[in-house]
């Protein structure tokens, strides 16, 4: 059981490239369809919880499912399984890349891919604006957040804290209005 949990999350961590959300289909297939550890409804519940909570999405998923299936030991197996391979690979690359960084060919390749990486950070801004339901009414929130961090050098931590306080207030007021 613990070994299976470790192997399943090892697979999910080791075979998905491009961030946590790419892992969703593989997780669903592995945990719901193949191992039949949980129902599709439970899976969807854990998914929304993991997305809402702070931290790395895939690790949050591993925590939920590990806890549900095997208690604390399950959590350790699932989380370690999930992050082991990526950490090992990145370490190898980090050591390797430092030796080749000043190589002319490597430098040329990176001159090409740096603008691409910035574009890849910019694209989700617009995609996420849709899924986070940014409208004309709350448009100012992300704009102010971006300007504070970009131009005034305010720490994102402070912006998040302000958003939590503002959000709780907003939730409290809407709850009052409804009742």
């Amino acid at each position: 059981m613990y070994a299976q949990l470790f192997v399943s999350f090892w697979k999910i961590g080791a075979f998905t490239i491009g961030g946590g959300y790419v892992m969703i289909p593989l997780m669903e297939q592995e945990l719901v369809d193949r191992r039949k550890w949980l129902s599709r409804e439970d899976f969807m519940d854990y998914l929304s919880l993991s997305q809402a909570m702070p931290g790395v999405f895939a690790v949050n998923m591993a925590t939920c499912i590990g806890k549900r299936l095997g208690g604390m030991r399950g959590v350790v197996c699932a989380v370690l399984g999930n992050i082991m391979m990526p950490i090992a690979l990145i370490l190898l690359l980090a050591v390797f890349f430092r030796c080749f960084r000043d190589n002319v060919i490597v430098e040329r390749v990176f001159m090409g891919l740096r603008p691409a990486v910035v574009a890849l950070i910019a694209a989700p801004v617009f995609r996420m604006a849709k899924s986070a339901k940014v409208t004309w009414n709350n448009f100012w929130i992300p704009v102010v957040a971006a300007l504070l961090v970009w131009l005034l050098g305010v720490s994102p931590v402070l912006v998040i804290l302000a958003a939590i306080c503002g959000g709780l207030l907003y939730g409290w007021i809407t709850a009052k209005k409804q009742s």
Partner: protein
Amino acid sequence: MILLEIFWTFLKIGIFTFGGGYSMVALIQNEVVEKHGWMSAQEFTDILAISQMTPGPMGINTATYAGYTAVVNNGLPMWEGVVGSLLASFAVILLPVVAMLIVFRYLSKHKDNPVTEGMFRVLRVTVVGLIAAAALLLLTEESFGVPGFNLQFVVSMVLFAAVFWLSYRHRVSPIILIAASGLVGLVVYSI
């Protein structure tokens, strides 16, 4: 003691990351490049490129790599860099895992609470702005070339626009886009 500083910094990054890997990038960038000056914006961009092309959650990959680079850039030996990277990776998941375990127990009770729902709504919207700031802060002369009519800047702008379009509109995989851009760079700058 830089190792302790790394642990504390990534502990903070972990618990304040809402909305996935890209928002974590915004936080890591602010702490590691702007605040502590552990590496240049260009180095951080290189780390992002490698983190996106390597399997695993992007947040973990970036934390592991940034932890290593921060230590080695401080002139410390490689093995301490390895310790730094492990510390960063564990610090970044530690508090979220604990928070997750606590919330998991109360899941059914507070799931549809309108106050927490309101909080998450505002958070989701705010995070969009934070990611935008990270992208804006990465638009540097080191990565794009000096603005003007010169080879590097023009090529960079074309690549930026093309990758943005292909990713946003056509959902082309980041790995393919990064690999193709690297190839373009190799060919264009070799001629």
